[in-house]
């Protein structure tokens, strides 16, 4: 689809109002089109500006008391209605809190996935992908000693379809972590290990999910947060994740 066709829908996309399939297609396009990405960024900035500028007027406490008093003074016959009205308002408050909570959690999660995807892509784009080059886990694991404030186990992959390329140190959320790179057929998969708490947000899925066109699996084990990410199939990502989980247990 030419850029012009995307741009017509840019506002609707940024408002999150396109059908999910089109949203995904738009995501992919924006990631590969600098013109649309720049336009999207500019519009997001204006959206944020309007959002901030729009929250301008606040009621006085005296006025708030006056309205509260007026509602409370409603005649007795409308007690039930008043109660129901108050209940509707309360439900709305709870719903808003829940929505806000879920939204914040989702935003933290998406931010973390974005950061992990960035680390993965940056490493693969680098001329020196790994700092310790070895297919032997007994060489790679000790290399991290003294470099990261925790220890973790690496699975034996000799008899599997995965090959360990090596490892490197990485940082996310200002916390040091381990970055391991594996290959499966022609795909490269990153495994990240951080201390739990390096990322905020709730992680409700331990099986691979699709984020930013990558497959990602994440789980927590022994106070550590693991991420397995790559463009390999969901099954490959889950298999590598499984190897790590079994090694630890």
């Amino acid at each position, binding site marked *: 689809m030419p*850029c012009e066709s995307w741009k017509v829908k840019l*506002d609707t996309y940024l408002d999150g109002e396109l059908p999910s399939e089109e949203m995904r297609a738009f995501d992919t396009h924006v990631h590969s089109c600098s013109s649309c990405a720049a336009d999207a960024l*500019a519009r997001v900035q204006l959206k944020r500006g309007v959002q901030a500028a729009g929250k301008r*007027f606040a009621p006085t406490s005296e006025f708030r008391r006056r309205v509260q008093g*007026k*509602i409370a003074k*409603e005649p007795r016959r409308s007690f039930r209605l008043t109660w129901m009205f108050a209940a509707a308002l309360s439900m709305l408050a709870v719903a808003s809190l829940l929505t806000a909570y879920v939204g914040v959690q989702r935003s933290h999660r998406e931010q973390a996935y974005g950061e992990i995807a960035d680390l993965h892509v940056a490493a693969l784009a680098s001329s020196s992908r790994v700092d310790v080059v070895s297919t032997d886990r007994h060489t790679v694991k000790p290399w991290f000693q003294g470099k990261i404030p925790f220890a973790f186990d690496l699975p034996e992959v000799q008899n599997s379809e995965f090959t360990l390329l090596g490892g490197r140190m990485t940082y996310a959320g200002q916390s040091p972590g381990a970055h391991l790179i594996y290959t499966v057929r022609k795909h490269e998969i990153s495994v990240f290990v951080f201390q739990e708490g390096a990322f905020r947000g709730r992680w409700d899925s331990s099986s691979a999910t699709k984020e930013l066109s990558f497959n990602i699996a994440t789980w927590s084990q022994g106070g550590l947060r693991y991420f397995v990410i790559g463009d390999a199939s969901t099954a490959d990502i889950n298999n590598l994740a499984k190897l790590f989980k079994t090694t630890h247990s």
Partner: protein
Amino acid sequence: MPLFDQLYNFAHWLTRNREEAEDLVQETYAKALKGFPSFQLGTNFRAWMYRILRNTFLTSRTGLRVTMTVPLDTEDDGPELAVESDTPETILVERSNRELLQKAIDELPVYFREILLLCEVEEMSYQEIAETLSIPMGTVMSRLSRARRTLRDSLRPQLQEGSATAAITKGTNRAL
């Protein structure tokens, strides 16, 4: 009272006056309480409250005065294709000029102001906006698009003027 702050903010933007905004909010709550039996449980309560406020505003003296001109809503507004290096958005963010933006929003016709605020400030979905304003979804999209374009157009000359002043000041400072 949930919604109280949001309704007041919206009312103030519509009326541009504190006393009138207070009257409008008070009347909205009174009407909502009185008309609560007409509210269908399971439907959108927030949109219902905003609809009451807006309808009350439209029938007020100020509302009647400012909404004499009805916008021509077209479904096809045509694409906006030009991407400039210095867009109103980027300059705005650089300067964090909230007051400039507030002035621009305030100067929008009320039918653009309200839809923009419902979308950006209240973060309503198109469906909720359609319910609140009692207009079809297609109209929500086209009116929103026109509101945003009008806002950008109104910001552009002010920002360019500001940029020129800033550049002159910068130059003068350098010369000194």
